[in-house]
């Protein structure tokens, strides 16, 4: 995995930027670029003050942050569920903080894939239907795959790439899967339709040690294969060495520090 890590080290690879998926206006601008960001919940002091945080395209970044450090809030801002009080959140060169809520929802559906800590799957959908879910809400991701006809085949391919090639499992209820299997299904769903950015929020915390590394390698391989940027958020630093870069949210966040940058 180190070889892969080094290859992507340079961050902005021209080849990937040119061949990268998606409809971003500017193929070379960072995947994620947060600047002068201030966020506060109503009636509370600011929770986040981030001067600058950027993730280049194709880069794999480990963001370390203990619970309560504003991790979920930052993901909400990147995911477009929250809007900052001031400052900017640029994704793939587009300023998302000024978009309308509905437009942010569409942008997220189109360009971002999420993997959460646990309970990632819709219990009433089958394995394949869970993986194909993003295509329901994003025409762009469905088109990138090659339309509805190719959708199922792509879902099967992704599941196989993540080590779920057993055909009988595809028809199973998701609630019958082990946690590890569930996380792989969730990863396949996040990757479906080649979104430019994959956000993983503690996806390995409910897995045992061996499964953790195995899961992460598969996820990274597939991210590289389809040119997706990976933002990995966790409090567990043991996986850090597998990434291009490690960032600490506590250090990024200057809320407790001196006066806010003007």
């Amino acid at each position: 995995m180190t070889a892969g890590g080094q290859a992507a080290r340079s961050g902005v690879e021209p080849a990937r930027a040119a061949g990268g998926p998606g409809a971003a206006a500017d193929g070379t601008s960072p995947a994620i670029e947060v600047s002068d960001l201030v966020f506060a919940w109503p009636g509370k002091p600011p929770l986040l003050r981030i001067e600058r945080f950027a993730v280049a395209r194709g880069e794999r970044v480990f963001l370390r942050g203990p619970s309560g450090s504003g991790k979920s809030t930052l993901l909400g801002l990147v995911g477009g569920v929250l809007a900052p009080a001031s400052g900017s959140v640029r994704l793939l060169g587009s300023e998302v903080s000024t978009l309308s809520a509905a437009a942010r929802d569409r942008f997220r559906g189109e360009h971002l894939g999420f993997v959460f800590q646990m309970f990632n799957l819709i219990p009433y959908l089958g394995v394949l239907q869970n993986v194909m879910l993003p295509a329901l809400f994003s025409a762009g991701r469905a088109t990138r795959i090659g339309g509805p006809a190719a959708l199922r085949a792509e879902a099967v391919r992704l599941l196989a790439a993540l080590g779920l090639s057993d055909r009988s499992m595809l028809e199973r209820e998701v609630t019958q899967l082990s946690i590890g299997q569930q996380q792989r299904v969730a990863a396949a769903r996040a990757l479906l339709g080649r979104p430019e950015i994959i956000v993983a929020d503690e996806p390995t915390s409910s897995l045992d040690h061996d499964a953790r590394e195995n899961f992460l390698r598969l996820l990274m391989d597939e991210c590289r294969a389809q040119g997706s940027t990976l933002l990995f958020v966790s409090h567990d630093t043991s996986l850090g060495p597998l990434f291009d870069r490690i960032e600490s949210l506590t250090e990024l966040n200057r809320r407790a520090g001196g006066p806010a940058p003007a």
Partner: protein
Amino acid sequence: MTPILGLALRSIWNRRTTALLTISAIAISVALLLGVQKLRTAAKDGFANTVSGVDLIVGARSGQLNLLLYSVFRVGDATANVSWASYQKIARHPDVAWTIPISLGDSYRGYRVMGTTNDYFEHYHFAGTRELRFEAGGRFGDLYDAVLGADVARELRLKLGDPIVVAHGLGNVSFANHDDKPFRVAGILGRTGTPVDRTVHVGLEAITAIHVDWQSGIQAPPGARVGAAQARTMDLTPDSITAFMVGMRSKVLTFTMQRAINEYRQEPLMAIIPGVALTQLWDLVGIADTALMIVAGFVVLAGLLGMLTAILTSLNERRREMAILRSVGAQPRHVFSLLVAEAGTLATCGVLAGVALTFAAVAAARPVLEQRFGIFLEIGGLTRYDLGLLGAIVGTAFLMGALPAWRAYRNTLSDGLTIRV
């Protein structure tokens, strides 16, 4: 919104036990509502069909309802009689096709005795064009022949040839019996579901015959009595009758004849059109079924509230699901429409199942209702009014679905992508 509907259906299927119970509750309430509605229509039609084919009912001048009640429903008494001369004059009018004379006043073990002629069996119709039908025997042949309604024969266990003694007056237990002139059961009518079933029919002349030696409600002393055989030899044309029914040669002549009778100078008479009078009477007694309808409406409301409870209860455990949907690009309005679609789907399934249940119940209950109560249920499709009711139920369900949908919408906005376990 098709993907949302697909998700809603799968979500319902996932919780199919609860969903099935919810749908059943709605289905049963809808079936109750439709059943009440159907019975109501059937009862109203049955009521309006108590007598048909008769254009006018003529009696002494009193109230319209009073005349209808005693002539058709055998309830209450006439205040005065119609003279035979007046009856004959109207019966012979060129526009009149036929008449049925009615003479009331006696009873047999609580059942009214009605003196009439064989024309009654010929012209009296009910429920549209249904004719009186003999279950056994036939019309009056002899002076002392009686024809029983279906209920009379069944409840008193009478069969053809049985003797019956008519009591003078209307009391259940009478001390003045016409026991010197007993009748013989000559015919038993089929069930009609009308007051005909509870009537003992005898010939008009027989009414005269049994009263030939009576004066002011008291029979002559034993020495002055007239025997049954002797009465046969006498002129039994009555002096008066209680009322009579008229069939016109043409329906358009009905109103002219009605006015002519109402303005008849020789005697204070009154003619009523049965259909009009029946409708007026139904307006009086129909309040009860409106109450029943209101009760059924509340049962439907209870069914829908059950659905609302089920959906609201499921919301908390579904917050995670909503967050997942948001992470793949669902907007809060998608979450809103997902829940409204669920409520709408449950209610629609409930309504459809309720309609099916109603049809099954009607098909099963039809023979019994017809046999026992004389109510004729139509199997036929839903009326416009029924469809309106069903539409209102589904519409209400959609509106109710907006409540959990609004709460889920609020949750979705505050939860964002963070799944709080």
